[in-house]
């Protein structure tokens, strides 16, 4: 059935999830170094910016159809890093945009990057190009813009829908080095066929942590892994319960998801009755 309000177990899970996050962030701030495996796509980000600096051609950073959401926050972390590098190399960075409110946020992030590198006076607001909030008017504007600007490297980060292959092919046709990161898995195959590097699902969220090695982001990344290990275990337990329930039907253990869904009254009854 639908979930309109949290059951006790869900509130418990939220509290439990918050534990590792704050614990590992504090540990990271205190200077603890975490091991993090290499992700090819992320090293390519700096390579791509360097390449466009050598060729003296612009970089494009597209946030696709991402609306104001946790995904946008992760994408802005990468944009912040890319914008700082472009400010240092004095490289033109264009931002084709799809939504007015997201554009305002992206512009404020880019300005902060130029300000931190002390290059605010070189920030050119006309590099923020609002195309359209209609999916395919946006795609057609993107295609034309990067072909005319002869972009040397293109970033496609965030939430994409069907237009993903159009954006990727446009970059591929002009020989741009492309790094893509899609939180929508069904667009990943098109980025794989048309881009040089593709970050998949949560690798997008990890990108900012990798690039900046900031304690908060590293701590959060490490905490995420811990939670995934718990879910990994939960799946194994759940599968074993389901298997046991099929082989010995009379056992009939309650599975994990029913426990999570148990409403307040059942939990109270269980606590009181100890059944």
């Amino acid at each position, binding site marked *: 059935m639908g979930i309109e309000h949290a059951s006790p177990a869900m509130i418990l899970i939220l509290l439990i999830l918050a534990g590792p996050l704050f614990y590992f962030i504090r540990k990271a701030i205190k200077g603890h170094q975490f091991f993090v495996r290499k992700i090819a796509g992320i090293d390519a980000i700096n390579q791509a910016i360097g390449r466009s600096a050598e060729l003296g051609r612009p970089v494009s950073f597209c946030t696709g159809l991402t609306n104001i959401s946790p995904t946008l926050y992760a994408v802005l972390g990468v944009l912040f890093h890319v914008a700082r590098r472009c400010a240092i190399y004095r490289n033109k960075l264009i931002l084709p945009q799809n939504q007015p409110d997201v554009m305002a946020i992206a512009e404020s992030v880019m300005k902060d990057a130029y300000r931190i590198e002390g290059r605010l006076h070189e920030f050119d607001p006309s590099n923020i190009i609002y195309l359209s909030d209609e999916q395919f008017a946006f795609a057609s504007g993107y295609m034309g813009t990067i072909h005319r600007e002869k972009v040397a490297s293109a970033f496609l980060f965030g939430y994409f829908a069907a237009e993903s292959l159009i954006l990727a092919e446009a970059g591929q046709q002009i020989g741009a080095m492309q790094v893509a990161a899609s939180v929508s898995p069904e667009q990943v195959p098109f980025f794989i066929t048309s881009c040089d590097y593709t970050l998949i699902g949560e690798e997008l969220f990890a990108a900012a942590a990798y690039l900046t090695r900031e304690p908060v982001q590293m701590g959060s990344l490490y905490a995420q892994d811990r939670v995934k290990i718990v879910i990994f275990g939960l799946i194994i337990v759940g599968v074993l319960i389901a*298997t046991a329930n*099929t082989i010995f039907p009379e056992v009939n253990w309650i599975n994990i998801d029913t426990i999570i869904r148990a409403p307040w009254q059942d939990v109270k009854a269980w606590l009181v009755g100890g059944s």
Partner: protein
Amino acid sequence: MTNQTLILWTTIMGGVCTLSIFSFLIKENPFYRVFEHIFIGIAAGLGAIQGFRYFLWPQILVPLFGLNIVQYPDGSFSGEYNPYVLLYIAPLLFGLLYYFIYSKKHGWLAKLVIGFSLGASAGLSFKGFFAEMLPQLSSSFKSLVVMANGTIDWASSLSNMLFVFTLLAVMYYFFFSIKAESATAKKFSASGRWLMMVCFGSFFGSTVMARLALLVERLQFLLIDWASAIKTLFSFGPPA
């Protein structure tokens, strides 16, 4: 301009627009560029008004100005003005802070509304997380042994085993902070990557149908509707 000629010209212009976009397949060219700019212009003009017409006007401004209250011929009113509606002024003014993005000195004010919107989407994502994830989690608890009236149904059992294996292998591949030293760990992670590629290949294959379907529809339009419209245009005969 009779209705008939208008439909004729709509079809003709539709064909010209389609050909302008298709011309990009050869090379970025002026013919494409003009229609790209027209497309963005039309979409911006349409979007601005539609956003107003379908949300701001009916849901916020009409109740705010009491336009939904009718005055009857005898001067009495169909309903009273609900003063709580005035609370809508707060989000409207607060939303205007976005426009401070353009001011050098007060740029930070825009960050108030930006933060607020980010916070709102964060608040929403807690329910979204459970509402979407819980059914997925419970349907991942697939029994490794599937019974079909007494005997083990090997086909489904093996499929379930592969399902669980793929799920765990792909999750394992995405662990960032675990060194996969042992041989089995490396193979397990590699198999996660391979199975993910099978998934992406299936996605790609299942999408070819959708993309070609669109192209078929556009070609149907060009080869049948547009072609006959051009014929009538030049032959000045009645539309076919």
